[in-house]
């Protein structure tokens, strides 16, 4: 038994008896009634420890097996579809967005310092498409996660 746990029980018993812990130790030796009450506290602890576990009704395992999702092999593909590939998927989507945006970025002479706002505006028209790609990827990812963890 851990010390602090023992202390708490002694303290609890002393508190119930209305005495201080220090005097309780001595009183325990001198007072048979107190010792008896302390023993009942200890008995409570033992009783808690000895509480029996209960069993469900007969055939519980069969009822559980009937409730399982169809086909135990489902676990196989679920396992393959664990979180790692999902993160690869998200990484791929982010990469796609970056590539889409960089392809559209004005190249060569167009990318010179005199690049005007019209060119930047044209480039920015690709942004919604990229964000749609990204949001779709996140949505699919969440869907996969939900299926896996359902």
């Amino acid at each position, binding site marked *: 038994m851990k010390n602090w746990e023992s202390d708490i029980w002694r303290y609890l018993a002393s508190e119930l008896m209305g005495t201080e812990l220090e005097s309780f130790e001595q009183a325990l030796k001198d007072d048979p009634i107190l010792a008896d009450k302390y023993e009942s506290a200890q008995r*409570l602890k033992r009783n*808690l*420890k000895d509480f029996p*576990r209960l069993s469900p009704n007969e055939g*519980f395992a069969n009822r559980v097996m009937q409730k399982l999702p169809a086909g135990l092999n489902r676990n196989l593909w*679920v396992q393959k579809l664990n979180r790692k590939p999902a993160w690869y998927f998200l990484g791929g989507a982010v990469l796609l967005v970056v590539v889409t945006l960089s392809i559209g970025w004005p190249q060569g002479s167009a990318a010179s310092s005199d690049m005007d706002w019209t060119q930047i505006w044209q480039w920015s028209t690709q942004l919604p498409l990229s964000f749609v790609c990204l949001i779709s990827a996140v949505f699919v990812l969440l869907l996969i996660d939900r299926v896996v963890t359902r």
Partner: protein
Amino acid sequence: MTTDDQIIRNIISGEQHAFRVLVNEYEDLVFTMCYRILAHRHLAEEAAQDVFVKVYRKLHLFDQRSSLKTWIYRIAYRTAIDHQRKKRVRTIELEKAPMVADSQDDAQVLMERSDEQQRIRRGLAQLKTIDATLINLYYMEGQSMEEISEITKLSKSNVKVRLHRARHKLAEILSRKQMEAT
């Protein structure tokens, strides 16, 4: 490799028998946890079935940071609490439970009803669900502070404090009842 590891591997590789082994191994533990929270045999069995379906569905996510037993306890605790909310079960019903067993109860419940244990059981029913669960896990199931913290998602120090208070409260209830009886 531990037996649990082997069982998990077998289940994931699609062996139907392996999951039945797991259910047989943990059914008493899960059912008892659900019963202590729901205080109703039929509801406890329903919740226990849900627990195993969840275990089955999530087993591939079990990362072995804790033991399988602790992980199953956590699912059982959360499921039983959810059922308690849905069904609006009041654990205080235990307090009103008749001294004589009803037809639903089996020999084990009767066994549990030794004088002292029955008194404790009724005392526990007067505690908050979380407090009764802490006492159940620590004393009746012998779980460590770390494991209880993992199961209930309370910090270790919070578990210690709450357990202390729960014990104190239980002792108070029991001594009050004893005084009433005498």
